């Protein structure tokens, strides 16, 4: 294999990894603030994909532009889910939290199946398969665009968490829920914002990936698993870790697909996951050992 093929794989891995990072960051925010592992995360992404699909086919809105609509819609959707369901199980047994979110995921994916059948839908834009060359490496245009949007969103997110009052309040809640509450932070509101953010990030990832991926009701579970791998790799609750984890997984998948085979790339990803769990369960950026 030539080095240009490898280089090509690494570049497209990083581009896809950007979207993975969004999914992972969403999961990690939810976990950080509520200590709830959201097994419906991939299904939230699926909802985002269908939303994008319908905005595109019905209203003709470009998938990358539709992010402006997807973000607030998914934020409200996530907030409602938090208020109705997740809020009731904060602090209960971890297995009950897992099962509740699995149940919510099943409801979402099966409702999608009920409404849209399990047919694969493909969103074809004029630039879906176009690409451009930089130094002999061809870069897919939709992937590059989505990476750009991902980078902007991630930067905005860092700014939000570091500079704004709400962002700091969310970080305080993540550090110590009770202490934050004693300091006068409305913890319940922060939880709603956190789940809303998580959902909108998942939905955005869905929107960004929809021009290059199949859309079907069960698409979520594969991404839920991927999101876990990313967050565990980066360290549960760490936003920087999840960003890094997303890009690492993107590159591992892409390079694994060219060096081994695309059939086995998921085995590679899961093996890395198990290794991280066994050797360094706190993850790359994790602070506490669990």
């Amino acid at each position, binding site marked *: 294999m030539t080095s240009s093929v490898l280089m090509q794989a690494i570049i497209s891995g990083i581009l896809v990894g950007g979207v993975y990072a969004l999914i992972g960051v969403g999961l990690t925010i939810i976990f950080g603030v509520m200590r709830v592992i959201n097994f419906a995360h991939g299904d939230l992404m699926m909802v985002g994909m269908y939303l994008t699909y319908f905005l595109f086919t019905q209203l003709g809105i470009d998938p990358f532009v539709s992010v402006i609509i997807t973000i607030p819609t998914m934020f409200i959707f996530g907030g409602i889910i938090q208020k109705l369901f997740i809020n009731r199980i904060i602090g209960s047994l971890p297995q009950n939290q897992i099962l509740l979110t699995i149940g919510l995921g099943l409801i979402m994916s*099966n409702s999608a*199946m009920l409404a849209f059948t399990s047919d694969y839908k493909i969103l074809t834009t004029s630039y879906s398969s176009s690409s451009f060359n930089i130094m002999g490496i061809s870069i897919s245009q939709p992937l590059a665009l989505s990476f750009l949007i991902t980078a902007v969103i991630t930067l905005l997110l860092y700014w939000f968490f570091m500079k704004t009052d709400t962002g700091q309040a969310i970080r305080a809640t993540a550090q110590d829920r009770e202490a934050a509450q004693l300091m006068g932070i409305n913890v319940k509101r922060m939880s709603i914002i956190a789940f809303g953010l998580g959902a909108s990030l998942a939905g955005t990832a869905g929107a960004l990936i929809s021009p290059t991926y199949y859309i079907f009701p069960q698409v979520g579970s594969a991404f839920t698993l991927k999101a876990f791998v990313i967050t565990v790799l980066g360290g549960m609750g760490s936003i920087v870790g999840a960003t890094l984890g997303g890009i690492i997984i993107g590159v591992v998948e892409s390079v694994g697909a060219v060096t081994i085979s695309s059939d086995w790339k*998921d085995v590679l990803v899961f093996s890395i996951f198990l290794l991280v769990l066994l050797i360094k369960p706190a993850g790359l950026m994790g602070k506490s050992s669990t």
Partner: protein
Amino acid sequence: MKPLSLITGNTRGFSIPSLIIGIVLLGALFCFPSFVQSPYALHMMILLFLSTIMGESWNIIGGYTGQYSVGHAAYYGAGAYGTLVLLQKWEIPPWYGMWAGMAVAVLLSLIIGSICFRLRGPYFVLASIAVAEIVRITVLNTPAVTNGAEGILLSDLPPFKIGGTVITDFVSKVPFYYISLLLAIFTIVVTWLLQNSKLGYYVQAIREDQDAAHSLGISLSLYKSIALAISAALTSLAGSFYAIYIKFIDPSTVLSLDLSVQIVLIAIIGGIGTIYGPLIGALVLVPLSEALRSNVIAQGLINCGVVREDSGVGIFLKEHLAHAHVLIYGILVVIVILFMPDGVLGFVKKKSRDWGLGTGKGLDR
């Protein structure tokens, strides 16, 4: 306290009336095929027994030991593939292949246990899913042995010999009915024996408090592994039975994450850590999801006049509701977790206690 209850013969769950009810029920189940010939009714009963076996076997590791494995499809698939691969490639009869499948499942459980039991809580759940996914992808990508994504279709079974009599009639569901009934009873007996054995007390101690159990000298990894191995062996039996009964398996039916989740839900919805829990779970889930699958509910809504058959909604329901039978699992698990944290069984018990009834029937709100 214990010796006294032994003398009076009134051990937990085995009062004289419940014993009589149990025997009558068992008798009725054994006579069932001689009164009901409908293949569909038998099929439903077989599905019920199969779900019971899956729920009870998961209950051993999940309910009694407190280790929420969401990767039981790996063991189910090991049983199913072990049996059919041997039968298809080397014409080894399923009643030997079954044991091979079980051996694979137990071996797999030991490997999985050695990796996953070091982890706790959500990390254990995630690891169990990851391992099961690795198994699924491996089966999918070794078509030389497993036929890959195409799956294995079994055209005919070799004759089944018990003593002198040869059973060749595999179109009839009656033999399958009895095999699954016996397997379900076997699983329940194993669970009961475990619950009242030293091993059972050890694993329940682990469930309640791992550190406390460990400090009392209970080897965590040893007893968790034993519990998982028993659970895996029983789950593989269910898989083997499914493979021979349905005569077709592929990775997406016997190895999928959805199956792992369904296995967990059977136990959770009924109530974990009890013998009757998974039984109740199966009794709730199988008829409901089958009613959706066979369009009974859509047809019922139309017949009741809730929706008109020729209206858009009616056509829509008839066409789509059948595809969404898993939806009921999702709705039920959300209701159970939010409103009945001890499962349907625990909920009914609590309600009947609240109303001061001994064995009264609890009504859902």
